[in-house]
């Protein structure tokens, strides 16, 4: 068996906020083409880690590499350009805009034309991007909501819009921060199937979720974070059997 290439590597990454250490010496790799689950009790530092990976925060120690190159000093928009897309724990959509507008905004990097590009060429580009956005919306099963205002939509639908928008930048790596929170079981199953399809298409995914069933079913490997440290990283079944993982969860009374 060949050693799989790691698309994203964290090497001894730490992040402190004042005297609080949110992420502590994390070494972790997301392999190309895999779905890696990231779980851990509340406050374990999962979202901080995602913010570090998407350059919203910079680490106070260690280094993060994407596709073999350090992302130190990178701005979030540069990382997006390099192929990392993400969703947010608390759903950050552009309110009072339609689903199509939101997803089309995600296509920003797809546009090449300048302001002065007029006429046919401009229309062609706009039409092409619009088509791509529409396809993504359909893929996420949102076709009937295409022109609805996202502010008025249900939580589950909003999460799906956010995933569609993240996919719109055609990322190599997709960071999903609790994509099924607040969803019904059928809805989250839907998301599970979608992640499966994405992996089949060659996408690398980092999935943070509390839904153990979803994580077990969709992830190739699972990493467990507790108090900012990685306490286990392995295939799902192995991880659930790990003593430290059980302790971390039972000890803190995870409600999930």
């Amino acid at each position: 068996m060949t050693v799989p290439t790691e698309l994203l590597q964290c090497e001894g990454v730490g992040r402190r906020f004042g005297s609080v250490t949110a992420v502590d010496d994390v070494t972790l790799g997301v392999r190309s083409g895999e779905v890696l689950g990231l779980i851990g009790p509340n406050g374990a530092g999962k979202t901080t880690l995602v913010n570090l990976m998407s350059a919203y925060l910079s680490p106070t120690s260690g280094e993060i590499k994407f596709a073999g190159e350090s992302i130190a000093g990178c701005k979030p928009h540069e990382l997006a350009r390099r192929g990392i897309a993400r969703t947010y724990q608390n759903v950050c959509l552009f309110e009072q805009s339609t689903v199509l507008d939101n997803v089309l905004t995600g296509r920003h990097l797809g546009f090449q034309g300048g302001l002065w590009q007029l006429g046919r060429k401009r229309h062609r580009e706009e039409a092409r991007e619009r088509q791509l956005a529409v396809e993504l919306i359909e893929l996420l099963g949102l076709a009937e909501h295409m022109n609805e205002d996202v502010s008025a939509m249900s939580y589950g639908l909003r999460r799906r819009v956010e995933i569609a928008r993240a996919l719109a930048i055609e990322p190599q790596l997709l960071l999903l921060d609790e994509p099924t929170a607040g969803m019904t079981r059928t809805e989250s199953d839907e998301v599970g199937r979608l992640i499966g399809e994405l992996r089949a298409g060659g996408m690398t995914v980092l999935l943070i979720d509390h839904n153990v069933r979803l994580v077990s079913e969709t992830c190739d490997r699972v990493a467990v974070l507790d108090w900012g440290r990685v306490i286990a990283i392995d295939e799902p079944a192995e991880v659930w059997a790990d003593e430290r993982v059980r302790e971390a969860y039972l000890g803190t009374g995870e409600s999930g």
Partner: protein
Amino acid sequence: MFEWIPAYQRFLLDVTLIDIILVISLLILFQCGLFSMATAGFAAIGGYTSALLVTDADWPVPLGILAAVFVGATLAVSFGLPVLRLRGIYLALGSLALAQVIVIGIANVGFTNGVFGISGIPTEVTTGWLVAIVAVILLVMELIHRSHFGRAMKAIRLDEHTAAGLGINVFAYRMATFGIGGAMAAMAGALEAHRTAVISPDQYDFGLLVVLLTYMFVGGVEHWLGPVLATIGFRILNENLEFAGTDWENFYYGSILVVVMLLAPDGLTSRRFTQRLARIFRRRPDLAT
């Protein structure tokens, strides 16, 4: 081209067109989520740059105005570097401090002729020029609005962090709009100087900014049409409020602002307000039946 209009109406038209440029210079920043109050300062820079070059160095008027645009853009970009670190209300008030420094500075240094201002500025700016300039500006605004640039600006305005996550270079956009906004305000200032023939520091005071802000917010910030219509509307209103007499003019102006904000908190052309209007008008026939 517009000589058939009586001079009085033509002057009002010119003033309105210049106001439109100023409002757009404010709006383009706001569309990127920047609430900047430096407009009056850049207008002063533009007015003085052109006025001084034309009167003291005998530059031709068009060249003076171009120089004003250049100086406005340069200053905006160089001030933008530090000032754009500020966010929200801090940017608003920080840029206001910047404008105050510029205007009070102009009033107290020698080469600008201080509080006396500059008079006898050549007035070659015609209504034709202004119409052409405003038309070009509005055309560009519409092009931006319909392109992915406009979408990116809206995304930045609504949520800059998320916009960045989608690959939008927030800083570059803000820098560019700050520069363009500064250039436009400076151009408006220069045009104003060459229209009214006299400039002095006191005209770039807080009051000017307040007027522009109300035009912009009453019109609504989603599309350039709102502020432009509001500017025209307020000009017409201003000319017709005279019936109220000097004493009560401000009272009516103020009450109009309050009432508009109560009816349409996001401006008269905001989707929220137009949709509500549409609902009201749709409901009418129902009531009748």
